[in-house]
């Protein structure tokens, strides 16, 4: 306990939860495919492709029609720069967080773009997926995206 203000005691503590979640059929298929080096999207009844896949059509709430392979290239729709990465971040060198709309998809996925600066990754930049060498069935199986020259 420390005494920073007028005799009111304070003490540091850490709270940790070791949660494990069930993925359900759609996300289970998605993460299994990631481990196997394939990217999946969900085709909605109205014909749109949702990547990463949701169990439902985000516009109508209807169940999706099925899963299918998604393109590994797409376009940045929003980006911000991480100048000093922390352990929580996807990459440990400066990078851009970006929403990436993969070709053919109607939604965008959040991931990292490896580039020298945000100037190299403005909205509209074409990027392609880079797989991690070891994959375990997590979002980190995608190492990052990188700009397409």
């Amino acid at each position: 306990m420390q005494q920073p203000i007028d005799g009111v005691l304070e003490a540091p503590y850490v709270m940790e939860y070791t949660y494990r979640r069930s993925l359900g059929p759609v996300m289970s298929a998605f993460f299994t495919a990631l481990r196997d080096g394939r990217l999946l999207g969900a085709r909605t009844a109205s014909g749109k492709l949702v990547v990463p896949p949701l169990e439902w059509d985000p516009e109508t709430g209807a169940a999706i029609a099925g899963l299918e392979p998604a393109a590994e290239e797409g376009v940045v729709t929003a980006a911000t720069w991480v100048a000093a990465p922390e352990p929580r971040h996807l990459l440990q060198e400066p990078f851009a967080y970006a929403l990436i709309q993969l070709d053919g998809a109607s939604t965008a996925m959040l991931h990292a773009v490896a580039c020298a600066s945000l100037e190299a990754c403005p909205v509209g930049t074409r990027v392609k997926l880079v797989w991690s060498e070891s994959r375990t069935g997590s979002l980190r199986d995608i190492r990052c995206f990188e700009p397409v020259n």
Partner: protein
Amino acid sequence: MSTFNTSREEIAIVSFVELSPAEASQLDEIETIQTIVSRATDGAGIARDRIGFTVSGSCDMLVGRPFSWIMAMDGAGVSKPIEESHVEMDGAWALYEAWVRLQHGDIDAALIYCFGANAAEDLMQVLALQLDPYYLAPTGINAAEVAALQASAMLASGATERQFAEVAVRAGLAVSVEAALAEPYLHRPLRASDLPRFSDGAAAMVIARGDYARSVCARPAWIQSMAHIADGHSLGARDLSKSPSLEKAARLAGVGAKATQIVEVHAPFGPQEVIALEALKQAGLSADAKVNPSGGTRAAQSVMVAGLAAIGRAASAIHRGEASRTVGHASSGPALQHNLIAVLEERS
């Protein structure tokens, strides 16, 4: 306009108090609640036994202790016992529940309180816990970085950094637009003056029906209507540069039905205020309505309190006779996902 969003009983905000950050930082949750509740009730001449329902709003993740509100309730004198409820949200949603409860017409008044004792070392990280745990949270992104992506999407669809800077000046977080624009980026395109300054805080409010409201308050702020709507959660499945949910909530609440003098907007990040005002304008908010004359909540942002504070300040303007119609806005969730609107009016 849906009738469900209009008060079917005469219900008014009759009392509203906030705890200053300096005072809140000295107190634990029980002491905080005791102080704020007694000021909003006893201090305003409202008898505790006329309060038929109590709702609190808070978030365990800020306090770092599961079910923290259970203990904090002691400060409201709950062992009689009392009829109460809790939302793990901003106090504005506690107000919504209390408003719905009062429409049953069987009790005179309801008490709402909320507290944001910010014990977390990194609040931006705590706020990121509200992200989808499958596709968003594993990226390690925090709340400020999410807001930066939203600001980026805004710039891509025509907004300007100058607009962000104007909001920062209005919030008292920059001395001038030029000074704001001269700041370095923290989370590009966000600068320090676009981010909230977090603080401890608490607020309490009493709402009351009809004659009882008139008997305890010279100028009750009548709740004409309330509505809250959420956009989808997935950041990549909606247009982050707009807020359809806020526009819809404002339409449901009939914001544009009459001239409004004051609007108090709760936008945790500066650029979100631009989005919020555009949505309100689309819903018919008077062009000459004063925006955040209270100074807004971003310069001393108490999470879980700021939304109720915006509505409470909109009510206080009516209590003080400074306006006859005001609009209060509260938001919740990442990237302005969830929005609540309260339309308040003076009645002679």
